[in-house]
């Protein structure tokens, strides 16, 4: 199961959305959560602090989720971090783009805590294999 003490980074430019994701994570018992309002801020936090899991929106100003994902995968320190991409796009080319960039999972808004748990469960399963 998911380790409740894991440190999460929620990245979204819309603070309401960050709060929603935080609430959902809280429902799953995860409270060790930090936030970033775009990819740039997130990357800075990732490089200076320790995180176990990234939940990021796709569409953001300054640095998008996919750019963040590529930057994370290109960084030797961060490249193994689980990365769950959130987006409203259910378009196939987007899913493929995310997958080829190395997203651990892909979740479409709106989603429930259950969906989130399921997605995270799958990510951890594949990690432990």
């Amino acid at each position, binding site marked *: 199961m998911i380790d409740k003490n894991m440190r999460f980074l929620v990245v979204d*430019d*819309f*603070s*309401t*959305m960050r*709060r*929603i994701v935080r*609430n959902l994570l809280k429902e799953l018992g995860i409270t060790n959560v930090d936030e970033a309002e775009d990819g740039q801020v997130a990357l800075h936090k990732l490089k200076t602090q320790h995180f176990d899991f990234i939940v990021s*929106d796709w*569409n*953001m*100003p300054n640095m998008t989720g996919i750019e963040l994902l590529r930057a994370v995968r290109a960084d030797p320190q961060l490249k193994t971090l689980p990365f*769950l991409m959130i987006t*409203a796009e*259910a*378009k*196939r*080319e987007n*899913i*493929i783009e*995310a*997958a*080829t960039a190395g*997203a*651990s*999972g*892909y*979740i*479409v*808004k*709106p*989603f*429930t805590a259950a*969906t989130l748990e*399921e*997605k995270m469960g*799958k*990510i951890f*399963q*594949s990690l432990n294999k």
Partner: protein
Amino acid sequence: MSDFAGMEDLMQDFLLESTELLSDVDNKLCELEKRPNDKALLNDIFRGFHTIKGGAGFLNVSAMVTICHRTENLFDKLRNGELPLSSELMDVILDATGVVRGMFTTLSQGLSPAVPDAGLLAALDSALAGNLAVPAAPVAAPAATPAAAANTPDWNVLHAAVTKATAAAASTPAPSAAVAAPVVEAVVETPAMPVVAAKPVPAKVAPQQGMASAPPENTIRIDTVRLDQVLNLSGEIGLTKNRLTTLRTEILQGNMETHTLRSLDEAISQLDLLVSDLQNAVMKTRMQPIGRLFQKYPRLARDLARQLGKEVELVITGEETELDKTMIEDLNDPLVHLVRNAVDHGVESSEERISVGKKPQSLVQLSAEQVGDHIVIEITDDGKGMNPEALRRKAIEKGLIDAETANGLDEKQCLQLIFLPGFSTKDQISNVSGRGVGMDVVRTNIQKLNGRIDINSEQGVGTRISISLPLTLAILPVLVVRACNQPFAVPLAMVREIIPIDVSAIQEVSGRPTIVVRDEILPLKTLANLLNWAPTQKPQFGVLMQSAEKSFILAVDSFVGRDDVVIKPLQNIRPKGVAGATLSGDGSVVLVLDMEDLLSGQADASGSGTMMLRNADNYSY
């Protein structure tokens, strides 16, 4: 998703944040009209709708999701160059933002918004198919259809590819399919939809309604740095209080040594400093950038200009200027009115402008700036300006003033006539402005905020309306004067200077006492008389006061000095000309005067006023 804990809170946050976002989108849309091919702008607008849609999805506001989704798709096509931007398309888009704004209002009342107007959805759909813009249709439609065709068939193949790529991406949840469905539907179905579907939309110019009655905000966003400051200061005040308590004990025990008293002095000075810092810090938590208000206006000006067939550019500066939150809310109506006035009455049509050798596009500037302890907001247009003679004639025609008074007015005073209730310069009443209910209400609203409104206008060059406001309503800087052995406070904002009254300088002009100050003839009004009190001595000083349109000298016995006071409104009783009361440093009660109120009474009963002046001749002027 209805089992969210704290859903109402979340809704509040969502509304606050997305209303801001939508206003931003509105402005970007206005800019987009100027630079239709700006990729960054298109991207920003796309993201705006996308973000609102995302939030609305979580809050189960499906009506909003539907409309944002379509608009977002439209912008996706626009930014990819699949669709050209036409003014018809802009109208549909702006209409959509209007509807979304309306939904925010509904949501803020705790109601679930209705399914958007079918006409709008149809218009969006046909726009998506490229059918809306009549000339562009033959080009855009084929471009859209192959895209749709290419989209539909190999979904399964692609999906399978994803499934293999990562285990996690495999179960793209059911909602995704549901969300995707409308896109396909929209694109496939619409070629059959006739252009007529778009017709009902541009006819409506109602979205302003939603703008004017923006949801009342009962939450406020405060920079944590500012909150920390408040906390920090209150902590320090606590420390100083402890120090004072210790000193009190020492003094009560009879320790009156110099260093004890010096410590007491130091502690009190420190407390003084800290309290004023705290007041400032608390005030700052209520300060909001005026840009949140301003950002609604480009859209307003644009819609109105389009409706009137004018070319108007609204340029905004000083959005970052901060003002008390309550004032920002109360400023909206006056400013909306002034912006509309500038576009409707202020600037000319393009043809008229060309005929007098001006640029066809007119410029309306809206600016905010902090000047000293005041905020000055200016609305400037480069239109035809106001004709003082015409205003004078109009006021007489309408019976608002008599011919004699009218002839006594100088040009500047003529301009002030537009603030009279019932004054309207347009003979034809348009649905935009011109009902004559506006300017006097604008002035009243500004005065309620302890502000001042001034007009400057030059014929053929333009008009500038300046509003001067105090930074906050919580603390009022006043000048404390004395009359009839009692202190009174007058708002410092109205005080221009203080002059000693020299009896020989008083001249009678049509039976009223006046003093000439630097070539300006100013009426002299004795405070005691204004209050209907018997004067106890000859006034020694004159306070040169300036209210909205008139300057005068307020004669007082003496003055105490300036002070920052907190006005406590009087409960149940409201004596004429008294705004409230406050406590002075020595603990006595000081009445704070409302000069406008005091003067209005004087103008009404001018006959008795003169009588009184004569009766009290030995003491007053």
